[in-house]
């Protein structure tokens, strides 16, 4: 990272702090009020902030660029009232209750299933709606809630598209190994993936669980070298992903494909790995090069441009997911023609099937994202950029497989 981009990145949150407050100020007669919590501090704060920037971006666009959104023949502005839940479920529940009391009808989600679950139980019981992009646990969707929607598929179904991508590789990989962080989301998605891959005929050699805070993976990599899998799948937090990749380079541990669900998309990853990031594959629920477009924001590219022009925090798919939540709400409201009928809006959300900048938004009957339409695309770092390699119809480049050994990467 050069000096300029460094200063830009460190300055970003300082510059943006006032924006948070101003977004609450412009309340007019016709407004749509969104509320909820995000972890701005604590364990989940990094991704939490990403989602928050997505929410902020959508609100700014709708209010400033579109001058409000036309619902039932009337322009509506959007307000956003978020608080920091500090990654703490107790804090989140009491403050969500506060917003329920204040009459908020439309909630946006926090990040992390152990917060989303208790909070969505409150909104559900109060008959309010939550559209979220931060809780993937199956339990959120399998307990009969009717007013909770997730922009992502539930954890156990998130690997479907990746498994399909493996099928397209040539030569066909034979063996896969897993490293995952031992938390609800990573574990369930790794287990789901493992089952899916075994069913598809791959041999799963080993699954290594890592603690949430890890300072050294040398030993796990020793196991990787000994097992020598074709593909190493890491379902880990971004800091751990960086650590794994760096130590793989340093200890010259090579696999034909390194697949890291979270990490390769982020700026920190590229900053940490430089040229070695090239060839690493990851999951992305959205990419600016995908050919989707919708009535709000326009195309995926337009969203990326608008975001970058107005915000300094490096863009990841979480921003798009956050904005996608608000877009889903607004599209449903447009259909209903008002912003007050909670039941009608819930039904409209449940029935949504519509292309947007984020992709085709369609929920399952239980409220989570459609595993095919809203499942992840597979991306690969190529020549410093992020290329979509699967699904084929959205691909911007072919998959590089097998990847070059670390020392040959440029």
């Amino acid at each position, binding site marked *: 990272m050069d000096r300029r981009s460094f200063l830009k990145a460190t300055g970003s949150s300082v510059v943006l702090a006032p924006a948070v407050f101003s977004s609450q100020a412009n309340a007019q007669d016709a407004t749509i009020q969104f509320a909820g919590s995000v972890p701005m501090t604590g364990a989940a704060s990094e991704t939490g902030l990403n989602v928050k920037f997505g929410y902020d971006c959508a609100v700014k666009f709708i209010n400033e660029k579109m001058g409000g959104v036309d619902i039932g023949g009337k322009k509506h502005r959007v307000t956003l009232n978020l608080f920091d839940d500090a990654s703490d479920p107790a804090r989140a529940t009491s403050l969500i*209750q506060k917003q329920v009391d204040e009459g908020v009808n439309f909630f946006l989600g926090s990040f992390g299933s152990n917060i989303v679950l208790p909070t969505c139980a409150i909104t559900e019981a109060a008959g309010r709606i939550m559209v979220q992009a931060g809780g993937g646990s199956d339990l959120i969707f399998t307990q009969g809630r009717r007013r909770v929607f997730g922009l992502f598929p539930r954890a156990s179904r998130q690997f479907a598209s990746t498994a399909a991508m493996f099928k397209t590789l040539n030569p066909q990989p034979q063996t896969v190994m897993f490293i995952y962080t031992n938390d609800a989301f990573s574990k369930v998605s790794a287990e789901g993936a493992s089952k899916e891959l075994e069913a598809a005929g791959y041999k799963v050699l080993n699954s290594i669980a890592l603690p949430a805070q890890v300072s050294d993976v040398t030993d796990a990599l020793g196991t990787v070298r000994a097992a020598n899998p074709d593909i190493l799948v890491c379902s880990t937090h971004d800091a751990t992903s960086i650590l794994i990749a760096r130590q793989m380079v340093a200890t010259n541990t090579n696999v034909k494909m390194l697949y890291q669900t979270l990490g390769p998309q982020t700026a920190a990853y590229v900053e940490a790995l430089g040229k070695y990031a090239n060839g690493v594959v990851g999951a992305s629920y959205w990419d600016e090069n995908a050919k989707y477009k919708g009535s709000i924001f326009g195309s995926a590219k337009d969203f990326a441009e608008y975001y970058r022009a107005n915000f300094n925090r490096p863009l990841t798919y979480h921003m798009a997911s956050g904005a996608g939540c608000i877009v889903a709400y607004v599209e449903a409201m447009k259909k209903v023609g008002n912003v007050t009928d909670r039941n009608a809006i819930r039904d409209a959300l449940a029935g949504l099937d519509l292309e947007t900048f984020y992709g085709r938004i369609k929920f399952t009957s239980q409220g989570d994202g459609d595993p095919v339409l809203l499942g992840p695309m597979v991306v690969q770092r190529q020549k410093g950029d992020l290329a979509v390699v699967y699904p084929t119809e959205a691909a911007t480049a072919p998959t590089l497989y097998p990847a070059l050994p670390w020392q040959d990467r440029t």
Partner: protein
Amino acid sequence: MTMRIFLLLGTLIVIVLLPQFLAPFHIRVVQLFFFTAALALAWNVMGGLAGYWSFGHTVFIGMGAFAAAHFVAKLGLPAGPLQMIAGIVFGALFCGIVAAIIAYPILRLRGIYFAIAMLGIGQVAAELANNVGWFQGDVGLFLETALPDGVEPERFFYYVFAGLFLFTWMVSLVVMRSRFGYGLLAIREDEDTAKMLGVPTEQIKAFGFTISAVLVGMLGATYAYSLGYFTASSVFRIDFSLNMIIYCLIGGIGTLAGPVVGAALMLLLTQIILGQLLELHLLATGLVVILIVLTLPNGVMGLVGGEAFRRRFSMRAGGKAR
């Protein structure tokens, strides 16, 4: 005496009627207050009276929660008030048994070493709960509450926690008034002398530790019920342990009212006043903690208690945890 009974009755009436006048959010805040104040009171039995500062009391919150969840799942009890009571009682008992077993070895340690050992035990339990598949601490556990018809969850748990708080308060009161309580105080002032004078320090410490654990386990199991779904990281939180200490210190350690006042003050600050400060609430909380230490070295109760109070209960006297 009659004055006291009236005071107690008055308090009870206020607690019972309060939810009628509060919005659900404030009901939840008061509920959280009952929960955290009871935790601080339970910690205070060992930390405040005996001078044994546990940095890992959250272990009993987690253990209570996990024990309750597995117990009711194992027995396949149908969700309902009976199941909840069974779960909470089992969670409390389980913590009591574990505490009684570890009490003798762990209470041989003093001061900061006891504090760290408890921290370590808390961490071991948290890691095991999270990583041993059987415990399911990583994917999470589910504790369903069957609410009586027409009762909102926040109101229901308000009364549950209010009851547990009063129970903990009564236990603390009885402990402080008893010979046993004076035994704990003697241990805090000078354990070796107390022992030489024939005070059965070993038994007293073990008993105090077990009582404290039972209370915290009971609260932990109930907390798990109130969350509905919890993972190891929801209940094994170091900040629970820290908060118990901080509430006691801020209110006035070793007293009955101190932990309660401390909890009330800090909740008021963090939940209501500073909750809206978005990115600055940690900073504000930190500042408040520092200011209180510098301006009220004996806690809020030291402010109202006068010189005699200070001599008996000041942080200096309790300050053996080096």
